[in-house]
C-alpha cells in the first residue's frame, strides 16, 4: 500500500510512457529500490554458486558441503568469524555458503513457475478470452476444477509420488499447478482489452484474428500478468520453503533455505541463529517480491486507467 505522493509519481510515469526502464527504477520509492537490490543480489548469488559448481569450486566461496568437525577447520554451530562470516551449522558447514547455494533452488523454482504461468497460462487465457465460445467454457471449467483443490494438500500428495525429488520435478509440479490463476487473469484482461477502440479498429480493417491476438492483445495484457507473477513468485518461494522444511522438496544434502531451517530446528534450545539466517533470507526475498509486485501493480492500474 502506498501513500498519496507515490500515486502522483505513478501518474507522471503514466504520462511519459516511453520513459525507458532505467528511469522507472529512478522513480521507485526508496524501499522498493531496496527490494529490487536484494532480489538482484539473490539472483546473482544463485548464478554465482552455479558457476562455482561448474568450475569445481574454483571461485572464492567456502564449500557448502565441507564438514569441518570431521576433517578439521571448524566445529558445529560456531559464531561468526573471519573464516565463517555467518558462523557454521550443526554439521559445521559454512552458513554463508549454504545460504547462497540455497538461493538457487528458490530462484530456479520461482522462475520456472512464473515462466510456465506467463507463457502457457497467459497464451491460453488470451486465446480463450479472445476466441470466446465453447473453448472458453471448456477451459475455464477445467481451471475452476483445478482451482477448487486445496493447493498445499494437493501439492503434498503430488510431490509424495516421486521417489527422487529433483529440482526439475518440483519445478514442474509447481508450474502446472500455477497455470489456472494465470489463465484467469489473462482471460479477464483480454476481455477488457478486446473491447477497446484499437482492437475494434484492427478488426474493422480486416486484420487476421491471430495477428490481433499477438500484436494488440497480448502486449497489453502482459503488464498485469507480470504484476501477478511477482507476487506469485513470492508465494512459490514460501511454498517451496515449506515443502523443504517438511523434507519433501529437493533432497539433502543439497542446501535449500527450508531444509536449513529444518536442520537448525533441532538446536533451537541452544541458538536461534541457524534458523534466523535462512529465515531472514527467505522472508526478505518474499517481502521484496511482494513490495515490487504491489508497486508494479499500481503502475499498471494507473497506466491502464489512463489509456
Amino acid at each position, binding site marked *: *500500500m502506498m501513500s498519496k505522493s507515490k500515486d502522483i509519481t505513478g501518474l507522471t510515469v503514466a504520462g511519459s510512457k516511453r520513459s525507458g526502464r532505467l528511469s522507472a527504477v529512478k522513480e521507485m520509492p526508496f524501499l522498493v529500490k531496496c527490494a529490487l537490490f536484494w532480489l538482484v543480489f539473490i539472483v546473482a548469488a544463485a548464478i554465482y554458486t552455479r558457476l562455482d559448481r561448474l568450475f569445481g569450486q574454483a571461485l572464492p566461496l567456502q564449500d557448502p558441503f565441507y564438514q569441518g568437525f570431521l576433517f578439521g577447520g571448524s566445529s558445529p554451530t560456531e559464531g561468526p568469524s573471519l573464516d565463517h562470516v555467518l558462523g557454521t551449522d550443526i554439521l559445521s558447514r559454512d552458513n554463508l555458503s549454504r545460504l547462497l547455494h540455497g538461493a538457487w533452488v528458490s530462484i530456479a523454482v520461482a522462475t520456472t513457475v512464473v515462466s510456465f504461468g506467463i507463457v502457457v497460462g497467459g497464451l491460453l487465457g488470451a486465446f480463450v478470452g479472445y476466441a470466446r465460445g465453447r473453448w472458453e467454457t471448456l477451459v475455464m471449467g477445467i481451471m475452476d476444477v483445478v482451482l477448487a483443490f486445496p493447493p498445499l494438500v494437493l501439492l503434498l500428495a503430488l510431490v509424495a509420488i516421486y521417489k527422487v525429488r529433483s529440482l526439475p520435478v518440483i519445478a514442474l509440479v509447481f508450474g502446472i499447478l500455477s497455470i489456472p490463476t494465470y489463465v484467469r487473469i489473462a482471460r479477464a484482461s483480454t476481455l477488457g482489452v478486446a473491447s477497446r477502440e484499437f482492437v475494434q479498429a484492427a478488426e474493422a480493417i480486416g486484420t487476421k484474428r491471430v495477428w490481433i491476438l499477438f500484436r494488440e492483445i497480448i502486449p497489453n495484457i502482459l503488464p498485469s500478468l507480470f504484476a501477478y507473477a511477482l507476487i506469485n513468485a513470492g508465494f512459490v518461494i514460501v511454498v517451496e520453503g515449506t515443502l523443504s522444511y517438511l523434507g519433501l522438496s529437493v533432497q539433502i544434502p543439497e542446501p535449500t533455505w527450508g531444509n536449513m531451517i529444518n536442520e537448525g530446528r533441532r538446536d533451537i534450545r541452544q541458538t536461534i541463529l541457524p534458523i534466523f539466517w535462512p529465515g531472514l533470507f527467505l522472508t526478505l526475498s518474499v517481502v521484496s517480491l511482494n513490495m515490487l509486485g504491489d508497486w508494479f501493480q499500481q503502475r499498471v492500474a494507473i497506466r491502464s486507467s489512463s489509456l
Partner: protein
Amino acid sequence: MLSKVIAARIARLVATLFAVSLLTFLMVEQLPGDPILAILPPEALDDLESIERIRSELRLDDPVIIRYGRWVGNALQGDLGKSYITDQRVSDAIKDRIPVTIELAFLASLIAALAAIPIGAFSAYHEGGRFDRIASAFTTTALSIPAFLAGLFFIWLFTLKFNWLPSTGWSRITDKGILANLKTAILPAGSLALAALAINARLIRADMIGTLKEDYILSARAKGLPSRYILMRHALRPSSLTAITVFGLQFGGLIGGTVVIETVFALPGLGTRLISGIYQRDTMMIQGITLFIATVYVVVNLFIDLLYLVLDPRIRRQ
C-alpha cells in the same frame, strides 16, 4: 433464478469432487513400491504363497478402474479403507484427529478476522498517516513470512525466552478444560493466522477507503457523531459482505495450512497423520485424508459462495 444458480454450483461441486477423487486415487496409485513390501515383514517376502494370498485378499490385482470404483463406492458410505501399515481404519484416524485441525483452523480465522477489522478500519480512517504506514509495513511483512517460520519463531520467543506457553503437544478440552486447551492452541493458531490477518486487513482497508467517501458518512459526520461510532456502525457494515466471503474462503485454505503447523508444533491433527502417511508410504491413509480435506475445502467454499449469493442480491442479477 436463484435455484438455477444453486443447481449449477452443485453440479460443479460434483464434477470437482469427481476430479478430486480420481486424481487422488491415481496419484497415490503411482507411488513407487509395491504395497505388499509395506505390509509384510522383510523375512516373509520369500514366501511367494502368502504374497499371493494377501494380494488376492486385498484384491490388489484388479484393474485400476475397478479398484477406483470400489474405493469411491466405499468412501461414499464413509469407509475409506484400512491402513496397510498400522491396520487402523482411515475413517477412525480422521475422526480421532479432525477436532484438532478444525479447532486450529477456526481459531486462526477468528484471530485473523478480529485483529484485521480494527487494523484495516483505522488504516483507512487515517489513510496515508503514521498508523497506516506502520500497519502497511506490518501487513507486507506478515504476508511474506511462511507460517512454519512464524511458528518456530513463536516457539523460540514464547517458550524458550519467556517460558509462557508450551511449545508442543495438545491438551484436549475434555482433558483439562478449555484454558489448558487454548494454551496449547494459541501459538499454532496465531502463526497460522498471520498471513490471513494481513490479507484481511488490506482488504478491509481498501474497502473502507471507498466507503468513507460516501455521502452518508459525510452526513453522519455533519450530525456530529463520534468517529469511532461512524467507523464501526456506518462504514464497517457495508464492508462486512466482502469480509464474510473472504473469511469463509480462508477457512478452507487454513484447513490445508494446518498440515504444516501441526508438524511444527507436533500436534495430533489430521496434517501430522497425512505427513507421517507420506513418509511411510501408507497409500490408504494418504488417499483417504487427501480426499477428506479436499472435500471439506470444496464443500466449505460452495457453502460460502451460496451464502454470499443469498446475502447480496446484486450478485444474483448478474
